[in-house]
């Protein structure tokens, strides 16, 4: 079969089409408000538009229309959509896997043989499996005891031989060493790990997502958590979802009592107290909307962190940027300071005027050039490898 393969970057093309499809999928699984993949997706009943729970709850605090279609709507009309949540998970896994393949196969200079006429698809497909199954071998390629791999279960003599050969290659060439990404846990060539971590970092949300931290609220209420914030008085409150209040009618003292009741700090002026309460209501409800809600102590910690960030940012903003003035002299000043900035922006803008959609065209061409035969070869090879 292999001898019949017409290479010319066949696998590259197949992968490119898959890659494009996955990338296009991102806009479907992303919230239009924050631009990130849905967290606790919620659907508006009237128009079926979906947003992250936290994003839409914040929006509804001062607005009562759907951000997308402007149909009158409110937080009371939100409902969970588990299907979307599951689909986001699926897409996440898919895109991470594709990213690994992309890093390992497409951009690895060591594998430049892919682009030559002599490559054999089997090698490429193998290399993906080798590297993804390598979590069970240590740096020198020995099997790590105590870990069972899927590989081991279906080891055939031929496969063992192949595996041995691969591990030998790794011993000789340090660039084949595999490292584990500290963020997503994917195993990846040590040469590419830095690049991969950069990508991963930009993908991960600001440490709001801590999976190990996630336990069901029921667990917390049953006393599995030892955190002080989760003590008795909260239980009764949490049977009912907290809502934002008519703050005008609340005295500072009452407001502080409420905050204390939820285990929140009572520091700061009235505006800060109101802001803190609102933020707690949004975040707590969003947490309840998610598949695996974290304990309330994590929500409180997040709010403390969020307040610190806000404070820090507002201080640095004031220092860097005394309030924007409207005078012409100020405008001139900006113009002067940012002259070089603006010059490059003008150049950029001019480029966009003449730019055709060359990128899109290129990928379409690649897609068109993939014929069924190529895909067949790819699938057959995959089956053969399994």
């Amino acid at each position: 079969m292999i001898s019949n393969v017409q290479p010319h970057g066949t696998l590259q093309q197949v992968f490119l089409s898959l890659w494009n499809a996955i990338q296009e999928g991102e806009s479907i699984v992303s919230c239009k408000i924050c631009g990130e993949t849905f967290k606790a997706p919620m659907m508006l009943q009237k128009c079926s538009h979906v947003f992250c729970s936290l994003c839409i709850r914040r929006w509804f605090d001062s607005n009562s229309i759907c951000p997308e279609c402007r149909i009158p709507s409110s937080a009371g009309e939100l409902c969970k959509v588990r299907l979307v949540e599951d689909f986001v998970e699926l897409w996440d896994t898919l895109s991470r896997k594709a990213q690994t393949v992309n890093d390992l196969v497409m951009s690895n200079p060591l594998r430049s043989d892919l682009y030559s006429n002599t490559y054999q698809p089997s090698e490429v497909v193998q290399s993906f499996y080798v590297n993804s199954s390598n979590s069970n071998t240590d740096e020198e390629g020995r099997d790590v005891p105590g870990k069972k791999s899927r590989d081991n279960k279906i080891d055939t003599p031929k496969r063992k031989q192949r595996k041995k050969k691969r591990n030998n290659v790794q011993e000789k060439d340090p660039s084949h060493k595999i490292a584990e990404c500290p963020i997503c846990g994917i195993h990846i060539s040590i040469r590419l790990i830095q690049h991969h971590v950069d990508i991963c970092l930009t993908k991960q949300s600001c440490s709001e997502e801590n999976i190990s931290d996630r336990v069901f609220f029921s667990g917390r209420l049953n006393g599995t958590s030892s955190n002080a914030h989760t003590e008795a008085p909260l239980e009764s409150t949490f049977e009912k979802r907290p809502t934002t209040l008519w703050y005008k009618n609340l005295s500072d003292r009452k407001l502080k009592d409420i905050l204390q009741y939820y285990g929140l700090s009572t520091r700061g002026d009235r505006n800060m107290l109101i802001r803190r309460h609102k933020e707690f209501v949004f975040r707590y409800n969003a947490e309840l909307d998610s598949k695996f809600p974290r304990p309330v102590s994590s929500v409180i910690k997040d709010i403390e962190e969020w307040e610190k960030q806000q404070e820090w940012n507002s201080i640095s903003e004031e220092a860097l940027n005394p309030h924007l003035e409207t005078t012409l002299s100020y405008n001139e000043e900006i113009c002067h300071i940012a002259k070089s900035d603006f010059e490059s922006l003008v150049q950029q803008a001019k480029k966009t005027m003449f730019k055709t959609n060359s990128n899109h065209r290129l990928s379409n061409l690649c897609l068109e050039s993939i014929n069924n035969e190529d895909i067949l070869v790819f699938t057959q090879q995959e089956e053969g490898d399994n």
Partner: protein
Amino acid sequence: MSTPARRRLIRDFKKLQQDPPSGCSGAPCENDIMRWNAVILGPEDSIWEGGTFKLTFQFTEDYPNKPPTVKFISKMYHPNIYSDGSICLDILQNQWSPIYDISAILTSIQSLLCDPNPNSPANSEAARLYQENRREYDRRVQEVVEESWKG
């Protein structure tokens, strides 16, 4: 430090670079992601053609739930642009939606140039000339287009 507003702005920036709208560009200031500079080129085949107009964006931590403050710093002559450069545009005020990003804002402002709304004038003289004396209006626009080359 990373907040929802800042994360969203980084995303906007990436999108703007990957898929810039025709005749627009923008980038955050070097040391402050909450402040952006942008450039809009006058649309082709219009009286604004040839103009390079500079703008600033000021975002708050409430973005994208609140719109940014957008101002022209190039001198403008337009029924919906105040003399200080502030823009009277519904999507930057009561018609704002958090799904708008910087590309969307730039595109809207660009189309506002050729399609002013004289019913909510920010520059009453420009609005009057636009309705009553188009030739004079065009001449005044031509002046700011030429002026935009200097600065």
